């Protein structure tokens, strides 16, 4: 095992800020993008229904 404790793991040999800063942004972006894409699809479907009512 590389890490002797959780504290050791988060510390990342002194590079914790950099490693977790990089991974955190990656995680946030890759959760936000699919959420936004699904919302886009939902809104497009709803907008098409509105369009039908207008006609």
């Amino acid at each position, binding site marked *: *095992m590389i890490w002797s404790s959780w504290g050791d793991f988060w510390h990342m040999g002194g*590079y914790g800020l950099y490693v977790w800063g990089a991974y955190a942004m990656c995680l946030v972006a890759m959760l936000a993008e699919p959420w936004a894409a699904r919302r886009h699809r939902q809104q497009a479907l709803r907008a098409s229904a509105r369009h039908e009512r207008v006609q």
Partner: protein
Amino acid sequence: MNQPIRWFTFAAPSRFYALVNALNPWLWAIALLLAIAALYIGFLVAPTDATQGDSYRIIFIHVPAAWMSMVLYLAMAFWAAIGWMFNARMASMLARALAPTGALFTFLALWTGSFWGKPTWGTWWVWDARLTSELILLFLYLGFIALVSSIDDMVRGDKAGAVLALVGVINIPIIYFSVRWWNTLHQGATISMTAAPKMAQTMLLAMLLMTFAFWAYAFAVVFTRAQALALEREHDAEWVRALRTKGKELQ
């Protein structure tokens, strides 16, 4: 019965929509499983690097993100060109759907590179050929998105986007070979087709697994966005109406 798959049928937005609905759950599952495996190997199996300590672990997302940023640009330019040449609507929609994901991976490559550069080079940013050309890639994506969304006429927007995307392709080899053509602070290629990898097996494995996870992710999210674009463009088509009725029944 062994019928060949007629790929062209998926060029119809209605069939594309149905195909994505069938594919996406699998793509998400694959992305998640591969990412977990990559993180497990990258953080619990791969040893600490002798020279860079644990800061090198950023490589497991940095290199895949940078690869994706370039591959997605080529895919975007390819589909934009196909849409332009053959007047294929789904191809143009795919090009538009690829742009935001490409921009996101470019941003992530720059961000993770910055967080890796600070501890190893002592600076967040440097106007080095590799970094500068990757930043230009981000501007190309953003320029493409701004251009196609600023033109109301859908077909003209697609054409203008295709021209921009194709001109911008020149930047891809510049990014790729920048570390060879110029004397850069950025290190050379981690993996090349001709030489043996310069890294430990476990490190390489984690990086490749994460690359495949990013691939699956990109397919899934781009497909979802392409579905949204197809719904917007074909809002009065029969298949969209059928989809709405089906949606109401399910509620």
